[in-house]
């Protein structure tokens, strides 16, 4: 068999830091958070951005943790602009002020994605684990629009706030957002640890989906609403990251290069570092990136499925989290031999509303197990 042609990556998710003033119980960061002392320095990130552009990457998403904890953020945005990368800031907004935003605009920032935890301060601040967070986000949104930057509102939804989806859509409109991502919590890492408190009911989900469909019609040409059905209620898996190592690469605060932000949860991998290898070598030649690339690794029923190059077998991290084997079919697929695991988890998940908040050491035993 000849090796399939590997296309260059389209986008870089640059996780500048795991530090964040928020403590959201569904954070996409790994349970084992990197400390500030382990972070790449400015010169290392500059080199990564130059290598990214040379490799064919078109867009860089500056993320975290909270990317604004890095005082060199404007410098890095400037480098992205200079090498022709489209830059997106993914932020909680609580550290944004007029002066910092002005510096980012001056450096050439193209777009801001601002996360919201709820439509109103009570629920939002409880989810964020930080008093006053919601009001700071409202102020940040106003600053972004005042500066003339396009705004995407990322509304993270789950059982405890899905009833207020209509108000979240109104909030996005009122803030002058151009796009709204209605982002169902994904159940890896922190989200998985809090699944019993977060997973929506099927009735909630049906109402939310119907609402989004109606609002998309009403708001056509005014507000674009992105909405993906959560895996636990889907019949077919999502094409996670557009397929393993097909479009995206993720760089952790310490410089590890990953095919997705949750990949560090997978055992038996040595993820390469930008400190010791070039991005091109990592993308085209590393064992970690090649392991689940394409279709040759697939088990049945994926291997002979008509959708194998549509969903790429779903999510490797979810397959591992639920079955203990990253190479199995994602149980989000109704055809997966392990589908019952997901069905059972859904039926059992209506538990206590209390959160395990994201913080270093909160899940020490799990950290030990995942490292």
């Amino acid at each position: 068999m000849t090796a399939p042609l590997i296309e260059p990556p389209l986008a870089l998710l640059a996780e500048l830091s795991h530090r964040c003033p928020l403590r959201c119980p569904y954070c996409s960061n790994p349970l084992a958070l990197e400390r500030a002392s382990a972070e790449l320095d400015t010169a290392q990130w500059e080199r990564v951005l130059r290598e990214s552009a040379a490799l064919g990457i078109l867009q860089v998403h500056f993320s975290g943790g909270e990317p604004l904890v890095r005082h060199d953020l404007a410098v890095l945005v400037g480098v992205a602009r200079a090498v022709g990368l489209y830059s997106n800031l993914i932020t909680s907004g609580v550290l944004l002020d007029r002066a910092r935003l002005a510096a980012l605009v001056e450096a050439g920032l193209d777009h801001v994605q601002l996360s919201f935890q709820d439509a109103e301060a009570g629920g939002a601040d409880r989810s964020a684990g930080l008093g006053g967070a919601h009001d700071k986000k409202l102020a940040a949104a106003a600053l972004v629009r005042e500066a003339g930057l396009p705004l995407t509102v990322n509304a993270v939804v789950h059982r405890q706030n899905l009833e207020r989806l209509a108000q979240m859509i109104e909030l996005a409109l009122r803030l002058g957002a151009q796009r709204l991502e209605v982002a169902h919590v994904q159940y890896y890492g922190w989200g998985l640890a809090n699944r019993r408190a977060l997973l929506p009911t099927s009735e909630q989900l049906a109402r939310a989906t119907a609402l989004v469909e109606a609002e998309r019609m009403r708001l056509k040409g005014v507000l674009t609403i992105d909405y993906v059905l959560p895996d636990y209620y889907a019949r077919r898996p999502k094409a996670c990251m557009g397929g393993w190592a097909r479009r995206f690469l993720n760089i952790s605060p310490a410089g590890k290069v990953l095919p997705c932000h949750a990949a560090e949860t997978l055992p038996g991998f040595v993820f390469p570092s930008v400190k010791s290898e070039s991005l091109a070598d990592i993308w085209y030649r590393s064992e970690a990136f090649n392991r689940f690339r394409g279709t040759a690794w697939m088990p049945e029923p994926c291997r002979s499925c008509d959708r194998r190059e549509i969903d790429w077998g779903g999510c490797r991290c979810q397959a591992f989290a639920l079955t203990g084997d990253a190479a199995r079919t994602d149980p989000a697929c109704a055809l997966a031999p392990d589908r019952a695991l997901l069905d059972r988890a859904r039926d059992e998940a209506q538990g206590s509303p209390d959160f395990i908040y994201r913080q270093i050491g909160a899940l020490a035993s799990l950290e030990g197990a995942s490292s």
Partner: protein
Amino acid sequence: MSGDVPNRLQLDGSTTLRFPKYAKFRYDETRGRWVVLAPERLLLPDEPAVEILKLIDGERSVAAIIDDLVRRFEAPREVIATDVTALLQDLVDKGVLAP
């Protein structure tokens, strides 16, 4: 639902369109093709769409763009007008083009 919804821009022949600062139509050397970079979006226009987008300059009206393409491609005006209007309306709805 209640609340005032801003109006959707409905194109007509007199509309003049431009790429807003945050939407970048450019040639990608790595892939050897034109791309549009926009907030959390990457569009890969096909060849006819590229010919249309090259005429977006913030000055020419939709009707003038159609006239230009009719001349160059010697196709019936109504066919070109339908295709061009559909493409541009879609990009306006996505926020990639603005008046």
